[in-house]
């Protein structure tokens, strides 16, 4: 099976072996991963709660997203890099871990949700972000899905740690 071969190749690369065998490197990479996720979830929540009309109501959604989301992306990049390093160190086992698989699905869902929001709801944001106007249901749905997906990602990430042997 090609995927199995690819995974085995990945975990035999020098960098993957270094991460796997170095007692100090993996914990440090993992700690940076946790820190990055903390920033992703925290900043995304600020935006999602604004779209849901729960917080930051005095700031336009557009401005909030413009100011906050760069930090979300920066933190996500760090999370993706550290996550990839950890994954590569034991690729076959992570790939076969059920909770990790679902975590990837949740990540894809979060990304897809963000893309749909960007290409649909955000298109006419000037209309619904005006003072007095209400956030459309589609935007609120996107915010809800986002919060649930990221809570799931954190939960499944923690669960992966518990179920890796």
């Amino acid at each position, binding site marked *: 099976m090609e995927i199995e071969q690819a995974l085995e190749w990945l975990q035999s690369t020098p960098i993957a072996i270094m991460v796997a065998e170095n007692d100090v490197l993996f*914990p440090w990479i*993992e*700690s940076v991963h*946790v*820190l990055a*996720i*903390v*920033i992703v*979830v*925290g*900043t995304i*929540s*600020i935006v999602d709660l604004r779209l849901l009309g729960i917080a*930051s109501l005095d700031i336009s959604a557009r401005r909030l997203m413009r*100011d*906050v989301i760069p*930090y979300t992306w920066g933190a996500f990049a760090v999370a993706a890099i550290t996550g990839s390093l950890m994954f590569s160190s034991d690729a076959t086992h992570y790939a076969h871990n059920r909770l990790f698989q679902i975590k990837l699905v949740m990540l894809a869902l979060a990304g897809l949700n963000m893309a749909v929001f960007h290409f649909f709801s955000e298109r006419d944001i000037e209309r619904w972000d005006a003072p007095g106007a209400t956030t459309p249901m589609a935007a609120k749905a996107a915010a809800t899905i986002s919060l649930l997906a990221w*809570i799931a990602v*954190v*939960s499944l990430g*923690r*669960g992966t740690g*518990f179920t890796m042997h």
Partner: protein
Amino acid sequence: MTLNEICHWIDQTALSQSIQAAGWVVPTVQTIHILGIAVVASSALMIDLRLIGVFWANRPVEAVKARFLPLIWWPLLLLLATGIIMITAEPARSLKNPAFQLKMGLLIAALIVTWLFQFLHRRNAAFGDVTGPRAAAVTLAIVSILLWSSIIFAGRWIAYFA
């Protein structure tokens, strides 16, 4: 009473035993703890970035403070509650753990720094603005960022010293 005796006593309580028996409690509580940290750390980061002057520099510090400070202090109660549950479930793994002890020390320092920011800004509304004491504000912000990051690191390292 030694630390060992305290840990043993906690471990033998009915509460501890029942949490230990129900395997789902600790992972669930850990997840809630991480989500709480996400709110606290991100809120502290937003305030610190404002003090440094890279985030919402055109908004008064008062506005940023009013928005994010409650999101530090209130979730800390949740973190305390989830933390107590985890300590109750695994007293030796936490209380005797050097990473945990370091984390608690760093946490006290972070709380002092957060309180210090509130105190300094109350005393001088220009604290954090270009007209106020820049060096002090930037230093405080950087120390805050380092402390909260270190707390998160120390939290993860508990597992490695267990």
